[in-house]
């Protein structure tokens, strides 16, 4: 590696005020991610994984520390800049898919293209859907698709933006094993294609296929490195 990191977090903390008490979701997190890395953030529920993802995706702002993604310093950035950042730099894949239910699969993807490209030519939504294996399901609405298909649409939507960072929050959490594996393959392919892919999950098995695993516990990084035993092949996964 050795290139300029695409994601850099320095001493990042995130606290919430709940009534009279203060809840710390993240504390003093340092993280540096290289372009094209396939990174898994691993940890149990409530350890701060999603908060970390939200901070990197500029959905949330840190209480302290700095977050820099693809050269953009997010702390202190204006609302307008943050919207632009999300449009042009990161893409999300959510556990619950978060498709627009009133749009077809093709329209969901096309919408993301239109938003990210803003008039500039972009990939054809149909082609992207074909790439994720949904050539025959393009004109279906989300309620007409299975969970795995919906997640494929969500991934297609993320890919179609052409953004350099893909953030996936428990992307296999609502899927059966076979579908989950297929989704992981898709995400893995993106990393090979140069997209930085960051997955947060509580499923330790998934972390076996990552280039790097960052382990969180109670809002603190407790481990950072390649998976024990080296990166496994996706075909070897089982859960």
């Amino acid at each position, binding site marked *: 590696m050795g290139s300029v990191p695409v994601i850099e977090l320095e001493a990042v903390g995130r606290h919430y005020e709940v009534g009279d008490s203060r809840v710390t979701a993240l504390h003093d997190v340092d993280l540096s991610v290289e372009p094209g890395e396939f990174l898994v953030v691993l940890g149990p529920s409530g350890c701060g994984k999603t908060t970390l993802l939200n901070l990197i995706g500029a959905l*949330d702002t840190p209480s302290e520390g700095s977050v820099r993604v693809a050269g953009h310093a997010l702390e202190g950035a204006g609302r307008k800049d943050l919207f632009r950042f*999300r449009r042009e730099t990161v893409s999300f894949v959510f556990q619950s898919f*978060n498709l*627009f*239910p*009133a*749009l077809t699969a093709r329209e969901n993807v096309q919408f993301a293209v239109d938003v*990210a490209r803003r008039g500039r030519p972009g990939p054809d939504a149909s082609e992207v859907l074909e790439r994720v294996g949904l050539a025959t399901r393009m004109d279906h609405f989300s309620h007409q698709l299975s969970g795995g298909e919906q997640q494929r649409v969500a991934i297609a939507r993320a890919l179609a933006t052409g953004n350099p960072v893909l953030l996936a929050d428990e992307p296999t959490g609502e899927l059966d094993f076979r579908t989950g594996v297929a989704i992981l393959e898709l995400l893995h392919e993106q990393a090979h294609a140069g997209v930085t892919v960051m997955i947060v999950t509580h499923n330790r098995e998934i972390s076996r296929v990552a280039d790097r695993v960052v382990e969180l516990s109670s809002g603190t990084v407790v481990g950072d490195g390649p998976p024990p035993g080296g990166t496994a092949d996706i075909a070897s996964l089982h859960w």
Partner: protein
Amino acid sequence: MRGLALWLRWSWRDLRARWLQVAAIALIIAIGSGTYSGLTSVSAWRQASYDASYDALDMYDLRVALTTGSFADADRLLAAAAAIPHAADIAAAEPRLEVPIQVDASTADELVLVPGRLVGVDVRDGGPHVSGIATVEGRGLRPDDAAGDTVVVDEHLVQRHDLAPTGTLRLSGGRELRYVGTGLSPENFFPVDDRGSVFADFAVVYAPLSTVQRVGGHPGQANRLVLRVRPGADRDAVEREIEDALAAELGDVGLTVTRQEDDQVLRLLYDDIEGDQRFYDIFAVLILAGATFAAFNLTVRIVEAQRREIGIGMALGVPPRTIAVRPMLVGAQVALLGVAFGVGVGLLIDELMADLLSGFFPLPVWEFAFRPGIFLRGAALGLALPLAATAVPVRRAVRVTPVEAVSTTHRTASGGLAPLLSRLPLPGSSVTQMPFRNVLREPRRTLLTALGIAAAITTLIGVIGMVDSFVATIAAGDDEIVGDTPDRLTVDLDGFALVDAPEVTAITDDPMLRAAETGLTLGGTLEPGDDGIDVALYTVDLQSDLWVPTAVEGDLDHDGPGLVLSEKAAADLGVGVGDDVTLRHPRREGVGYRWVESELAVLALHPNPYRFIVYLDDEWASLFDLEGVVNTVRVAPADGVTVPDVQRDLFGQEGVASVVPVTDLARSVRDQIDEVFGIFRVIEGAVLLMALLIAFNATSINLDERARENATLFAFGLPVSRVVLVAVTESLVIGVLGTVTGVIAGRLLLAWLMAAIVPGTLPDIGVVTYLSASTVATALVLGVLAVTIAPLLTVRRLRRMDIPSTLRVVE
């Protein structure tokens, strides 16, 4: 272009997904904007219809009336007019002879004995050419009618008593007149009797001039001259010259010249437009406000339902303005739909109002043309208000942080006020308690639903409460007038008479009567006051056994002269019992009268809401120098004698102008007001429908938001009936909250309307603020029952629910 197409498609799907709620909001907007357009255009077409009617019948420009009882040679009147310097400016001049009559138009079903006026007009050459007569039914007058007793009856009498369009009338004295049709003439577009009462049952009968001269015993004579002035002519000069010429011609005979714009009936009709419009404006604003709030409330809910999708848009980096496009497009389309429906609602309201008004004010010309300008204004309001209502929640939705917007749990995280309930030892299982917990768990949602219902109920109470208040006011007036002697009759004489004159004693000594009390009715003005208060002063025996006004304050027993005022008059004058007021009244002086002022104490206050009614004990008639002079007699039938018997007995007696049962007086007012209330009922119908839609919609959205929870209950094996029961109970609680809030707010609104708006619109009436039990019951039924049973409409949807899909995170 592709982007726009996507947005439009998307918003159409949004509309389709919630078509029932969308249709309901659109209808609410339609009722709001349509009622506004419909009610606002009423004034426009009334004005146009009046203008056209007056134009069509060539309403006089100047009208000369000789003093009551005076007549002049008809040809001399015409010659005098023709001789003025500006005679060339006169387009037409016609003499008239008007004489008071009593008419018996009784049918097999109804005794119709009414005072009236026989109007002799020039029918030569297709006349009258000034203030013509429009034929409504049958035929108009022809020159050859002069040979016989052929007449045309004013349409109002025929309509009021449902008479045949042709037939025979009998005048007092037995003379019969054959009426060949019914008609309308500008001076009688609204029937006003010889004392100026607009509510009187009064017969206007048109006949050739020579017929009236023959019937009235005034051959060749007239007592009116009506003129039309050429357009652009100097009317002031014509008026001045006519007045001078006739004064010179007639010598001692007094005369008054009335301009068209000062015509009593014309002013009454045009002023009525203005007064009615104030009420229409109030109703239109109330309904529009209710509709706007409802649209706002419902849009908030729809936008909130899209909260997560807005969050996804934020996560994708869609700029807030672009995110706002979708809900705003939905809002715009709902508004457009509402405005389109609104035109229909407006036209429907227009048509209903037209039916009612043309029945109430029969006119020769009604112009109900569509008023695009007014409807455009209504449409603009119908568009702007819901759009503004959409913009507020949209703006709020796009201002939350993306992480909050995309969250699936943030709104339920705190549990709302549910912890309060957990401390209460409520009976029943957790399922039984669930509706109450639901209500408290999300106070904002509860509040929005309750406010939606409350808005509808507030409008309902405000509008129908006004109707209730008017009805109660009239009832109070009826009760006071009728008192304990509903068989009483009022006999008005055709002029002043000595109390011992034969025509008076013929009444007072009539064996068919058990009681007869003479009195005076005079006009006057009470001061102080901004402009003084015009009053009708009645002298009555305040110790009478027949009838006395009720003293709600003060005492009718007294030693000196004093007045019994209405509570409204006292309040307006700022006086109470014991205070002095200045009464400006006529006082006999020689053969005429002079206006004088007398300081009189307020003896008591009566509850009649009409502030112009003032009583003075008859022993103080000396104030007017009219001791022993009367012009009215209050009578009651003897035992075994009926009211119609008395009417027939006194009909046609010398000196009697009219014999009217007091219950008829009250009924007459009520009939007239009921016509006006017919118009209010149209508005009431619109409000009821709107309230029902708001209540249904608010509940329906509430249920949609509970879809996932209901799916969870199904997952736990609860039957549909139990889940519906939970929903019904929750709706009941919210319905009660909303209805109670609405009734309280509506009552406050009503009080404000009555205190701030009505006094300026109806200064002569002390309208009581009253909310009838039936209105409250309607509000309760609507607000509680309709809302409570609304979940039942969703049973089918619940039965068909795809539980696994619904259980997934709602997108």
